[in-house]
């Protein structure tokens, strides 16, 4: 059914900036405080209280702009977006309308298949968040918590450049990875630090113009972005194939039922009556300010990627995976700087470490092993103290303890059994204990050889090197 239809998707991502205080007041933005203990005169919109712009929020927005090669506005303006709702105490949200701080830029989005797609960023602007309404706690009233009111947000708007739900999810993920990398957002989706709205329409393949679109609001996970869009794309195609029309509207994703539901029609388009906020002066960014921000920019993912490929001779796909996230890149570099082999370090980080993190539903910000432990482990594999199976055992131990690798090896007696005489004696014992099997091996049953190697490994408590056992055993049996 979907074969001759093409989805067109653009997203808007609200990023909560990781400042200490709110965008226009000195109130702390710390998460999880009791209701309204993080709401001062300005956040409560007391008459006469005036906003003063937080320099760090401006710096963070500029960092994002520089990272996507965008034009940074020399002068930008804050506007009032007017609407009435109890958790918006002023009756307007301070936002930016037609002069955003960050203009057009480009974002390289890494897709599932490892390919990279350039997505246009239309703009990014600064604004304040609203408070929270609690509808189900009080029988006769709605409770208002203004702790979140005035929290700095950067709203990032993309061009309608994506052609599938998976691409849109990948773009959201890439923005998440970039703002975490730049350290301008804590990236905590569960606490609402990032929220995604998606605009979606479908058209016949080859059509030049876009179809009518709908907007899905407030999606807070990568998986839900993909699922909500897949549902909505199918729904729109279904409506059009039945000869119906798409109504321009805002929809909400219901994750429990995996459907999108109409919230309100946009026939009467929203009228927010934007106008410049007279309480705030135009923001002019001097070249000195921009240069100062530029000088504090971290090495960006693409730059790191190129360096990993040239300095550590990693294959580009491996370097891509290592620079996908700031935590993994930092962990990798720390491990290599401690002298660990670059290729082995990459293998371990993307192999055993990734698998263990996955098993425990943790991420690279939360690796219980230290770079030092991993570097030591790799060193012990390279100097042949540990076989690969022993290394895995040591890895399991450092996963759950801070003990140094060498101490674990000594204490547990995990050193590889590589003394040939000792190993020969062990093999001799196994040969003597298994006359029938030895007979079969001599008769050409190669499978049984594996059995005997297994017995030797078991007797050595996993400390022998299976390859070495194989060679010695064959020699001793004259086969």
């Amino acid at each position, binding site marked *: 059914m979907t074969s001759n239809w093409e989805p067109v998707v653009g997203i808007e991502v609200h990023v909560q900036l990781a400042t*200490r205080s709110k965008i226009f007041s000195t109130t702390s933005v710390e998460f999880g405080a009791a209701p309204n203990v993080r709401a001062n005169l300005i956040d409560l919109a007391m008459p006469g209280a005036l906003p003063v712009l937080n320099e760090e929020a401006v710096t963070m927005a500029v960092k994002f702009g520089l990272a996507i090669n965008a034009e940074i506005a020399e002068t930008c303006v804050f506007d009032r977006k007017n609407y009435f*709702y109890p958790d918006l105490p002023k009756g307007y949200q301070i936002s930016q309308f037609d002069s955003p701080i960050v203009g057009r830029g480009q974002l390289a989005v890494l897709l599932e298949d490892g390919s990279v797609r350039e997505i246009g960023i239309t703009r990014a602007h600064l604004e304040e968040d609203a408070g929270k309404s609690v509808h189900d706690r009080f029988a006769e009233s709605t409770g208002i918590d203004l702790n979140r009111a005035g929290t700095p947000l950067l709203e990032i708007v993309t061009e309608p450049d994506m052609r599938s739900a998976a691409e849109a999810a990948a773009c959201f993920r890439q923005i998440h990875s970039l703002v975490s990398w730049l350290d301008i957002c804590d990236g905590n989706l569960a606490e609402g630090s990032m929220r995604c709205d998606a605009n979606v329409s479908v058209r016949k393949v080859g059509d030049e113009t876009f179809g009518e679109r709908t907007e899905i609001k407030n999606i807070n996970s990568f998986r839900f972005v993909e699922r909500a869009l897949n549902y909505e794309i199918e729904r729109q195609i279904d409506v059009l194939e039945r000869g119906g029309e798409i109504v321009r509207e805002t929809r909400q994703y219901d994750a429990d039922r995996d459907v999108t539901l109409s919230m309100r029609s946009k026939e009467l388009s929203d009228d927010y009556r934007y106008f410049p906020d007279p309480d705030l002066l135009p923001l002019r960014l001097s070249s000195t300010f921009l240069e100062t921000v530029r000088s504090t920019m971290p090495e960006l993912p693409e730059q790191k990627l190129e360096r990993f490929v040239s300095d550590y001779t990693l294959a580009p796909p491996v370097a891509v995976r290592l620079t996908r996230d700031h935590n993994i890149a930092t962990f990798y570099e720390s491990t290599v700087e401690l002298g660990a082999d670059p290729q082995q370090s990459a293998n371990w980080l993307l192999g055993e470490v990734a698998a263990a993190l996955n098993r425990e539903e943790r991420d690279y910000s939360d690796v219980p092993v230290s770079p030092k432990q991993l570097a030591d482990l790799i060193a012990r594999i390279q100097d042949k103290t540990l076989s690969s199976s022993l290394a895995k055992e040591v890895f399991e131990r450092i996963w759950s303890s801070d003990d140094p690798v060498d101490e674990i090896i000594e204490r547990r007696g995990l050193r590889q059994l590589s003394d040939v005489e000792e190993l020969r004696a062990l093999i001799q014992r196994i040969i003597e204990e298994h006359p029938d099997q030895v007979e079969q091996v001599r008769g050409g049953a190669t499978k049984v050889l594996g059995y005997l190697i297994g017995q030797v490994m078991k007797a050595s408590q996993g400390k022998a090197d299976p390859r070495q056992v194989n060679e010695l055993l064959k020699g001793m049996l004259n086969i």
Partner: protein
Amino acid sequence: MDDLTIQRLMSLSQLSLDAEDKDKISRDLDAIIGFIEIMNKVDTEGVEPLAHAVDLDQPLREDRADLDIDRGLFQSIAPETADGFYLVPKVLDRR
């Protein structure tokens, strides 16, 4: 000022007006718009729009957080509070 425009303004400002008030408001708004029309006649050709009447730049504040907020003081002047929340008449989320 036609009735549809008044209806729309009432909806945007979340006010409900009876017929008499609507009449009065409609006349007031006509007068205000008439005044704006006078300003609209001023020749602004070649004049750059201003975002602010004062020709100054926005000062910036250092990002320092204040944890010392007296919620009780603020809530003492609120019409109704419970468990730290400000209470308002029950609303449905329309955003």
